[in-house]
Structure formats: structure tokens, C-alpha cells
């Protein structure tokens, strides 16, 4: 009994901080999302009437498209990131030299410290329509002003974060994998490829899903990458939220978008978690 009480007491400070800094602001956002907005004012006025209009507006095809676009591009970036990160993580985890492993991990962690603006403008200066590769693209008959091309550059921007993060997550999963299991499979006649597919990958499922979910989270919440690389023509949900709060001061609408985004993200994490569990069972 006393042990249970101690646990509760130990948890109390963390719960208090969590409630104060996360739950309370989210409740305020939730309340704001149901308030009517008076044009020309900053946020909802005191005593503003309750309304569902801020949510109803998001059912318009244009907004459904913004959500779909955000999740689709984040999904593409996450899939590519996991595909690229896995072999790199595998190599680092299986490197025999501890110093090479340390140096590789330090380099990956170091990448995370590079400013977002530096990465974004580096991509813009390279792949933008006035970038250094512009003549090459022109020669290859690629239109740098086309929508698909802009989407490609945004995905490249998202990969700047998703790949290092996925490598770090997958590194843990691969390192925890007992290499004797693969040796056993191969000693029983499995080829390198089939032992990789039937032993390594299934045992890394949880890590792969974790890397994917974290990459998705980074992608969906990306702000500066679509803001700059999207040239204002491709907007992510974060950009819409920023515009609502900061540029037009329509807090209720911005709050409604935020709540919908949060619910969708929670649903995504829940589904991915279920999917990972079912994969592990099979």
C-alpha cells in the first residue's frame, strides 16, 4: 500500500507539470475552436458564441486536400527515410570497430544540430528554379516550376530530418538483434537474402514502425520546409495554422485545424501501433 502511495507521490510533480503545460493549453485551444470569430478582431472576443462552423469549414474539399497533401508527402518521406536509413543503421550496428561506430553515430547526431533554415535554403539554392542545378534540369526537360517538382523538393527537405532520426531509432533495434539468429538461419541453409527477410526484418518490425511513425510526425508537423521549399504554392497544415493564428488572428479557425490535426495524428499512431503488433504476432 505504502509502495503504491510512494509511486503516486513520485508521479505527482510530473503529472502536475504535464497538466499545467500540456493539458491546460490544449483545453484552451479546444474551447477556442468552438468560438465564433468576429472579423477584424484578434482572436475570439470575450463571451463569443459557441459554433461548429470552424470544424464544418474543414470539410470543404480544399481543406480535405490540404490534410491529404500533408499526410501524403509526409508518408512518402517516411517510407523513403526508412528504406534509406535501414541499411545505414545496419552497417553502423554491425561495424566491428567501436570507434567507427561512435564516429558514425556522432556524425548522424551532429546532422540533427544543423539549422532548419540552413538545410532549407541549401536545398533551395541547389534545386530551386534559380538554383545551381537549374541548367541541368532545363537540359533534362524538367520544369522546376511544376507542382510535382516542388513536391519532390519538399520530400527532399523532409528527408533531411527523417533519415538521421530513423537511423538512430533503427540502430537501437538492429543492435538489440542477436546476430546468432541470422547465423543459425544461414547454417540451416537460408541464403543471406532470405535470412534477412525472414529473420532480421521481422525482428526489427517494432523499430521500423517506430522510425516510420517518428518520421511521419516530423513530416506532418513540418513548418519551415513547406513554407520555403513549397514556394507558398504547397501548404502544409502547420502553415495553415500559423496563418490563422499569426497573420489573420482568427484563433478559433486555427484552433479547430490544430485539434483535427492532433486527432488525426493520434489515430495514425494508434493504427500504426496496432499494425506493428499484428505484424509481430504473425
Amino acid at each position, binding site marked *: 500500500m505504502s509502495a503504491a502511495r510512494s509511486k503516486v507521490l513520485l508521479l505527482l510533480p510530473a503529472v502536475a507539470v504535464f497538466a499545467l503545460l500540456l493539458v491546460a493549453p490544449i483545453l484552451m485551444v479546444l474551447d477556442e475552436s468552438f468560438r465564433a470569430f468576429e472579423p477584424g478582431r484578434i482572436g475570439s472576443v470575450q463571451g463569443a458564441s459557441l459554433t461548429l462552423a470552424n470544424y464544418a469549414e474543414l470539410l470543404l474539399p480544399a*481543406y480535405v486536400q490540404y490534410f491529404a497533401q500533408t499526410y501524403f508527402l509526409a508518408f512518402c518521406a517516411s517510407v523513403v527515410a526508412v528504406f534509406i536509413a535501414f541499411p545505414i543503421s545496419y552497417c553502423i550496428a554491425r561495424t566491428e570497430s567501436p570507434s567507427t561506430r561512435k564516429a558514425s553515430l556522432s556524425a548522424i547526431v551532429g546532422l540533427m544540430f544543423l539549422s532548419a533554415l540552413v538545410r532549407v535554403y541549401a536545398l533551395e539554392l541547389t534545386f530551386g528554379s534559380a538554383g545551381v542545378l537549374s541548367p541541368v534540369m532545363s537540359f533534362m526537360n524538367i520544369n522546376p516550376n511544376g507542382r510535382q517538382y516542388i513536391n519532390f523538393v519538399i520530400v527532399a527537405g523532409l528527408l533531411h530530418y527523417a533519415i538521421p532520426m530513423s537511423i538512430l531509432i533503427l540502430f537501437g533495434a538492429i543492435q538489440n538483434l542477436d546476430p546468432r539468429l541470422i547465423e543459425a538461419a544461414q547454417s540451416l541453409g537460408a541464403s543471406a537474402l532470405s535470412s534477412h527477410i525472414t529473420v532480421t526484418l521481422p525482428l526489427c518490425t517494432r523499430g521500423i514502425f517506430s522510425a516510420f511513425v517518428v518520421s511521419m510526425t516530423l513530416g506532418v508537423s513540418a513548418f519551415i520546409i513547406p513554407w520555403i521549399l513549397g514556394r507558398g504554392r504547397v501548404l502544409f497544415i502547420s502553415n495553415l495554422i500559423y496563418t490563422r493564428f499569426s*497573420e*489573420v488572428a482568427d484563433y478559433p479557425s486555427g484552433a479547430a485545424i490544430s485539434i483535427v490535426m492532433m486527432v488525426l495524428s493520434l489515430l495514425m499512431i494508434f493504427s500504426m501501433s496496432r499494425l506493428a503488433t499484428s505484424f509481430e504476432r504473425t
Partner: protein
Amino acid sequence: MFSTRRQFLKSATSAAALGASGSLATTVGARAEDTITAVDWGGNYANEIKKLAAKQSDIKVNWQLHAGGAMAILPKIKAKWPNPGIDLLTGWDPSWQMIAREGWAEPVTTERVPNLADIPHKLLVKDGSGNVINIPRTISAMVWFYREDIAPFPITTLDDLLDPRLKGKICFPVPSLGSNLQMLSLALHKGGDERTMEPAWEFMKKLARSGNIGRIANADTDITTSITSGETCLSIQGASAPIERARNFKIRILSKMDKESGFRTFIYHEGWCVLKGGHTDAAFKFANFAIAPETNAEFNRAISGVPVNIKSKVSDEIKPITFNNEEMERFAYIPDWAFLSTQTDAWMKRWEQEIAPLL
């Protein structure tokens, strides 16, 4: 940072001494009143106003910069109200309207700002109680302009924006930037005005479908970067920026074009308001210093703006945005700012729903 322990201790002691003297000064109660927090635009504006502030010693200014457009700071002020931590806030016509509605500004009088007497009264904005809330410092204009060195042909009318030769070469601002004066231009050209924007939306749809828009600007910096990098060649912006760019690039400012061209010039003014609850007397004192004839002329010469003080001299470089009465009639347009400030939200949503999907 500290190479030796002694050095560290020395610095720590100095910091402690500074802290102690600071708190002593606060107790005495004299210094705090003389230090204000002011928010100004970045780039040239910030550099020049700091130079100006250095020429006086009565008021110490803790400078902060706007992040994004003039509206972006208003939600932050609301979140911190009634203690915004800002004494002097720069803004322009549309933001004054919103500040007036919120009742945040300290009333401005000639007793508190004597130099206000030399500023045209037409520039003063009043709140619901009839109090003046702004201290103008610069008259400027939103102008269309293009880079002649990279434009594929001389651009003479707004209809040229649909020319296929301008594929990907236009930098068009979103409606929340510049109070949507860019679309007001389109409306005026097609027979509408700020209250009849339908013709502008129709033109905008054609423009979006044409593929001529290379970048949608969300902030002034987007325009500057896009134009100077050569990504796009044509845009609309507050005149200071294109006038400054014209020192290094071959830029044609379309500020004095006939009405038929559609390239209208929108006159606006920038300035300060003093927020309630802070160091209001010191803020008024600094603003009064900054709008004196010489200081106002010096600042505006540096930022390529027109001084508001009628006793200030005007530099030659800003001729594109100086108008006599006849020119005002022919080239300029002063919109209904109060109305514009209530439309941004609706226009932005319509943009997201009807224009952005076409880009």
C-alpha cells in the same frame, strides 16, 4: 568561453556586481522609467532607427524586431495583455485599425508629442473614443515593380501578367500580406474596388491557372529573396525595398503608370503607437524625438521613405513615391483601411479554397 577558472570567477563577480547595481537602480526608481522596449521592422529599418536612437541619451531602447507581417505580433500582444512588455510598437494603417478596436493604445496628444503639430492631421488614426492612437513617421507606397534585366519583355499593363512568356516569373503575395492591395489592384483594373472584389478573384483564377506565378510570398523577405535571386522578376511591395534594390539591380518601379495600365500605387503610412501599461512617458518622449524635422528626414532618407514632418527635407531617391496633387489623382489610391482590416480573414480563406489549389 572562459579559458581559466579565474576568468570565470571574475566574470561572475562582474555580473553579480552589475545585477546588484541594477537592482539598486530599480529601488531608486529612476532608470527603469528611461528604458523602453520598442518593436521595429528588421533590415534597414532596424539599423537606421538604432543609429537615430544613439543620437539621444534620454531614453534607452531595448529593440525587438517584427517576425513576419505587422499583424503577426498582435496575437502575441493579446496573449500577454495587459502586460505586453512592449512600449513602442511600429505598424501601419491596417494594424492601427485593429489596435484601435482592441483599445490597446495610449492616447496621443500634442502635449505629450509636441512634434505631432507638424504632421498632417489626415495621417492620424482615432479609436472609438476619438483619441489619436498613432504617431506617424513615414509615408510610403505599395508599388508594383519588375526586374528589367530578367523580364522577357517590357511590362506595361496588369493584363501582361497573363502573358505565357512570364511563366513562373511572378512573385504574388498572399492576401494577408500587404492587406491584399495586390488583389485590390486587380479589382480596380477590372472595374471593382475593395468592396467589389469579384473581378479580382476571376482575374486571379486565370493568373493561377496560367502557371506564371513562381512563388507566393508569405512575408516581405520572400519577395526580396525571390526577386534578387532571379527566381521571379515581378511583384508588389512597400516602396522602400524596391527603391533600395534598384541600387544594385535594374528595377523598374511602376508607381507612376496611367490608370489604364492597372498598376495603381497605394499610399500608406507607417509609425508607432504607444501601448498602455508600460513606460508611456518615455516612449512618447522617444517618438517625439524621432519625428522632429531633422531626425525624421534623416531616418526616411536612409529607409527610402517620405518623411511625415512637413518641415523635413525629402531626398531625390524617393521621387517614384512622391506625388503632387495631380499625380495623386492619376496614379495613387488610398484604400479604406478600416474596411480592409476586417476582410483579411475572409480573403485568406477564399484564397485557400479557390486560388491555392490552382497554383
